């Protein structure tokens, strides 16, 4: 435990020092703020549920940005340190490889959580400060959105580690990470849509569709935030899908947890067997 905390603390310290955290928080805050105030222009001032609109736009932003940021910080966690030669020294210390990986995981999650809470929180607080009426239900949905965004980040941090222990060079890791991002964020949904259009509902039942959506963590996130909250789903145009897919929030959260734990466990196993 102590070792995990030490490595996590060092990871956070380094990210603070090289201004990674600052850059990430600033990026998220800037995008969240512009989405909040520019994005709400079409709805005008009549929209009583201003924060719900923000949830919809920030969720869409998260689906693109958070996996990218998570992969960016995680893809070279192992291979980068190995290449720079710092891993060799670290592993000569009384610390197991599992502890190294878990410590980094805790550290990276903390960094991502900090940036998300602060970045998105700024947008919500600013919105409230400008006098928009926000009820408790919306605040809960917003907190849920931030929480699931961090969970989505955890998924991609774990996937990033798996990439990082599988490849031999940093450049390869970066390439694979971009590929993974494209696959989950862009290609998967387009392919799924294509299949659904061609199939015309003949063979693919709603059960199969649910299963297919679980295969992509970003879709699980989308279902949780855009279809889950009743108010948000009306704005997001996801209510149709939400009616079809019979998956409760608990199942969806379990799916995200599984998407985190399986790659993380696989990464830990491969890393502990890898020869340096």
């Amino acid at each position, binding site marked *: 435990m102590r070792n995990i905390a030490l490595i996590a603390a060092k990871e956070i310290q380094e990210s603070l020092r090289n201004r990674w955290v600052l850059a990430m928080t600033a990026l998220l805050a800037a995008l969240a703020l512009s989405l909040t105030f520019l994005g709400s222009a079409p709805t005008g001032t009549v929209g009583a549920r201003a924060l719900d609109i923000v949830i919809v736009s920030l969720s869409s932003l998260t689906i693109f940005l958070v996996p990218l940021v998570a992969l960016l910080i995680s893809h070279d966690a192992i291979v980068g340190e190995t290449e720079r030669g710092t891993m060799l020294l670290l592993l000569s210390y*009384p610390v197991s490889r599992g502890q190294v990986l878990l410590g980094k995981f805790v550290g990276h999650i903390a960094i991502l959580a900090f940036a998300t809470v602060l970045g998105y929180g700024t947008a919500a607080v600013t919105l409230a400060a400008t006098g928009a009426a926000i009820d408790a239900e919306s605040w809960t949905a917003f907190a849920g959105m931030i929480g699931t965004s961090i969970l989505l980040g955890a998924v991609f941090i774990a996937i990033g580690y798996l990439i990082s222990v599988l490849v031999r060079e940093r450049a390869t890791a970066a390439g694979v990470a971009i590929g993974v991002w494209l696959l989950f964020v862009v290609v998967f949904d387009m392919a799924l849509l294509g299949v659904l259009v061609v199939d015309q509902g003949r063979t693919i039942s709603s059960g199969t569709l649910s299963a297919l959506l679980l295969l992509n963590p970003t879709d699980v996130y989308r279902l949780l935030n855009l279809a889950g909250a009743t108010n948000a789903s009306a704005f997001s145009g996801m209510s149709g899908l939400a009616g079809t897919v019979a998956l409760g929030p608990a199942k969806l959260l379990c799916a995200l947890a599984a998407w985190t734990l399986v790659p993380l466990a696989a990464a830990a196993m491969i890393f502990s067997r890898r020869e*340096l």
Partner: protein
Amino acid sequence: MTSLVEVSHATKRYGAIEAVRDISFTLEPGQTVALVGHNGAGKTTLIKLMLGLIRATEGHVRVFGEDPAAGGIGTRRRLGYLPESVSFNTALTGREVLAFYARLKSESVDGIRALLDRVGLAKAAERRIGTYSKGMRQRLGLAQALIGRPRLLLFDEPTTGLDPGLRMEFYEIVSELRERGATVVLSSHVLTELEERTERVIIVNRGRLVADGTLDELRRIAELPATVRVSVAQGGMEKVQNLLGAQDSIRTFNGHRIEVDATPSQKIELVRRAADAGDLIEDIDVIPPSLDELYAHFLRKEAP
């Protein structure tokens, strides 16, 4: 009493490449050992085997009586390692990095100041490592290896690229460690760099152990000729040459110096004959084979 380190018939293969082939040796407490070989001879692989970072394909390695690859936490606390071309995260300061490593070894952070002082980094402690020179990084690497007064220190090419002053300081620290009873392994690709500071030399070549012993033992085994150099007074050249007898290896230099290669058994006889020449000679030197020659001899012997 078991040995501190026991390497027994260790072989390490990477695919078809045999980095280390059937190497056996033991290290005892308090020894300073030089691990010498060309680049790629298997020195780093041997050190990684002793650190437990890799596992032997065949044979076994024991450090403090345990398998280092099994991940024994106790073993690693008593071990210091300085990797070849050590590197650190450049965003942190020297003190921060040392504090991190000290905590990992469950050592108090209080000892850091003394360590930084010892390696001459006290003034740069609060500076980011990104601003350090190569020598300073090497000093920091040395400082982290000394954390927790380890009983076994593995230094991989510690003096490569260091300026002579720093090298002297480094060897001072090594002799302090020896006095404290620690076992120190120094690897190097040139024997001369170790400047006779180690009591034992292990030479590896192409993954095989080709020599293991003290420098004197190795000299005896190698039977390399020493050079007897005689400075001759003006005009005595011919006479002295006759006195020394017809040697194949006799060389003369600018009319007043003679050099003869001599095996250990011939050496005394040559010196006696030269001394018989009395006033005709000004000086006699007996130069033992250099470390370079010794090293080259063992590598040649191994070549097919």
